[in-house]
């Protein structure tokens, strides 16, 4: 403020009322943009593959546009002051994911495989269900603080969801990771994706009540605040649960996600760095401990340390009781051949990755066809979603909303990190899906619901305070003095 330089002279600035624009029109403009980009990509794939604009362009564009439009109308009606960026960002990522999945459907190499199914129409349906969930969250969840009442029910619910894949007959083992359940007649479901949201509700409700005890009752030792033994209870319980997930479901990603989310929320609730130190130590100890005896995890670590060796073992058809996979190496080659600017839509060979090319490894397709520039843009889109989530947490006035928003966006960020890091070879690969981009119904639906909750919190946070009404009593009532 310039007035600080000449404080003595005069009063140079005035403060008006805070403008509280709802920013819905900004959102609409961005949404149009977010629908046009995937349509452009879709046309580009068709032109590159068979020299013509693909036949489904109109229906695809209309489908995506309709979804975005419905989402927008719902936000306009149900959460008018919500953040203008979250919906367009999610729509764009979802649309680009659909294009990449459709592009991989066109690959003859994948079509020749035994397990091939047209994934793009299904993903479009899942996305529509996801947007329906999004609208439903906005419609039924009028105030996010209602969720606070279900703190301990959410805990039980999350545990049930996490344990479902272990129930015999219901669990469904896909390539070593037991994270699916099979519902007869409906297909498979990944309950962990939903558990992520439910668990965030529990952590937020729990930490809101307990944060003072966790933050203040501690002793100082070597620059760290050591919490009391009894306050360590919950973090140890969550740690044990995540280790159990790791052991019984052999799913490194989910385990890391839950523990990481808890540590993030604990840190935000208590402002104690020592929790982060403890969290990192405990997850390191847990991961190393489990990896030392669990063969599935060992294979993943092997493939991470030396992907080329795995590739050769797989090519040579070595049968030693462990599934060797060439995927990790193929993904790295895809990134490498993409270079800085990529090969262009439809002109890469990421289909060499094989069966998981459109789910776990979808980022490799983007890496090859859009190059470093494209992947960076995608990661920035994710970063923007996370930033808006954190911003929502900052703006939220109630501690529960703050913690819930930070938990959900933290979980989102961790998931992106775990998947992208795994595909790029930074950390061992885990069986998780890139939010919105990857093929998979549970993931798309759960993440749309997550965006819905964030929008609800952000609407509450950004809604302007009601204008002070002049009290009518002040005029009417007369004080009668004798």
């Amino acid at each position, binding site marked *: *403020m*310039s*007035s*600080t330089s*000449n*404080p003595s002279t*005069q*009063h*140079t*600035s*005035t*403060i*008006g*009322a*805070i*403008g509280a624009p709802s*920013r819905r029109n*900004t959102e609409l403009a*961005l949404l149009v*943009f*977010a629908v046009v*980009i995937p349509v*452009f*990509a879709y046309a*580009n794939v068709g*032109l*590159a593959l068979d*020299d013509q604009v693909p036949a489904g362009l109109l229906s695809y564009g209309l489908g995506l546009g309709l979804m975005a439009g419905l989402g927008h109308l719902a936000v306009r009606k149900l959460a008018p002051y919500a953040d*203008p*960026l979250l919906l*367009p*960002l999610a729509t*764009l990522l979802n649309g680009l994911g659909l294009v990449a999945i459709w592009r991989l459907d066109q690959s003859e190499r994948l079509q020749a495989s035994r397990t091939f199914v047209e994934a793009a129409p299904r993903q479009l349906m899942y996305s529509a269900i996801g947007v329906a969930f999004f609208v439903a969250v906005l419609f039924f969840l009028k105030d996010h603080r209602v969720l606070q009442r279900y703190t301990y029910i959410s805990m039980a619910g999350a545990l049930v969801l996490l344990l479902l894949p272990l129930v015999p007959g219901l669990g469904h083992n896909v390539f070593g990771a037991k994270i699916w359940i099979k519902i007869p007649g409906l297909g498979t479901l990944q309950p962990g994706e939903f558990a992520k949201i439910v668990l965030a509700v529990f952590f937020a409700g729990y930490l809101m009540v307990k944060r003072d005890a966790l933050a203040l009752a501690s002793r100082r030792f070597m620059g760290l605040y050591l919490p009391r033994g009894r306050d360590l209870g919950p973090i140890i319980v969550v740690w044990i649960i995540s280790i159990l997930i790791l052991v019984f479901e052999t799913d490194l990603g989910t385990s890391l996600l839950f523990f990481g989310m808890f540590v993030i929320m604990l840190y935000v609730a208590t402002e104690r760095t020592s929790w982060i130190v403890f969290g990192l130590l405990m997850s390191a100890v847990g991961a190393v401990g489990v990896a030392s005896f669990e063969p599935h995890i060992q294979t993943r670590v092997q493939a991470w340390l030396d992907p080329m060796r795995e590739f050769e073992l797989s090519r040579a058809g070595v049968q030693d009781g462990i599934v060797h996979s060439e995927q990790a190496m193929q993904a790295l080659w895809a990134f490498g051949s993409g270079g800085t*600017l*990529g*090969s*262009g*839509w439809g*002109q890469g060979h990421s289909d060499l990755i094989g069966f998981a090319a459109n789910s776990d490894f979808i980022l490799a397709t983007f890496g090859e066809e*859009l*190059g470093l*520039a*494209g992947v960076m*843009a995608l990661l*920035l*889109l994710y970063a*923007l979603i996370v*930033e*808006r989530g954190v*911003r929502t947490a900052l*703006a939220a006035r109630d501690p529960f909303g703050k913690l819930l928003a930070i938990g959900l966006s933290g979980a989102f960020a961790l998931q992106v990190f775990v998947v992208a890091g795994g595909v790029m070879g930074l950390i061992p690969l885990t069986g998780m899906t890139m939010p919105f981009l990857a093929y998979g119904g549970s993931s798309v639906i759960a993440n749309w619901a997550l965006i819905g909750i964030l929008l609800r919190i952000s609407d509450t946070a950004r809604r302007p*305070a009601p204008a*002070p009404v*002049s*009290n009518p*009593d*002040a*005029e009417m009532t007369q004080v009668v003095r004798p």
Partner: protein
Amino acid sequence: MSELTLTVMRLGFLAVLWLFVIVAVQVIRSDLFGTRVTQRGARREAGRQQANRQAPPQQRQQSGGGGRRGRNTPTKLVVTEGTLTGTTVALQGQTITLGRAHDSTIVLDDDYASSRHARIYPDRDGQWIVEDLGSTNGTYLDRTRLTTPTPISLGAPIRIGKTVIELRK
């Protein structure tokens, strides 16, 4: 499809994708400015004229509304010390919140202020009251620390951390 067309499309797509990212960041940028601040340093003369034009309706409103409001009704709140020195807020019957929270009427950039530090509001008789909202370092009227909502007299300094504000006619 010719090589050239595909290259143009490839680069065009990347450009459009990045354009989206940049537009999105531009939308965020506007969030950085919470409160609208109008600088009037250069146009002080114009500002004064405007104030003169606005003054009569205000006074009419006040005299018509309260009846009991006398000559000593403050019309503005002025920050006299601290980083916001020189800021004025017109008093028009609204509650004024002070604190570091970005949605406060006066956002204090002061290490000694709490996020929701104090509020200033008119009671039924139009008397302005200052109330401490449970701040850490307290709100002082003259030299005394506030414990209850207290009426403010004209020109009495209200101290919050390093910031001093007062009501003026």
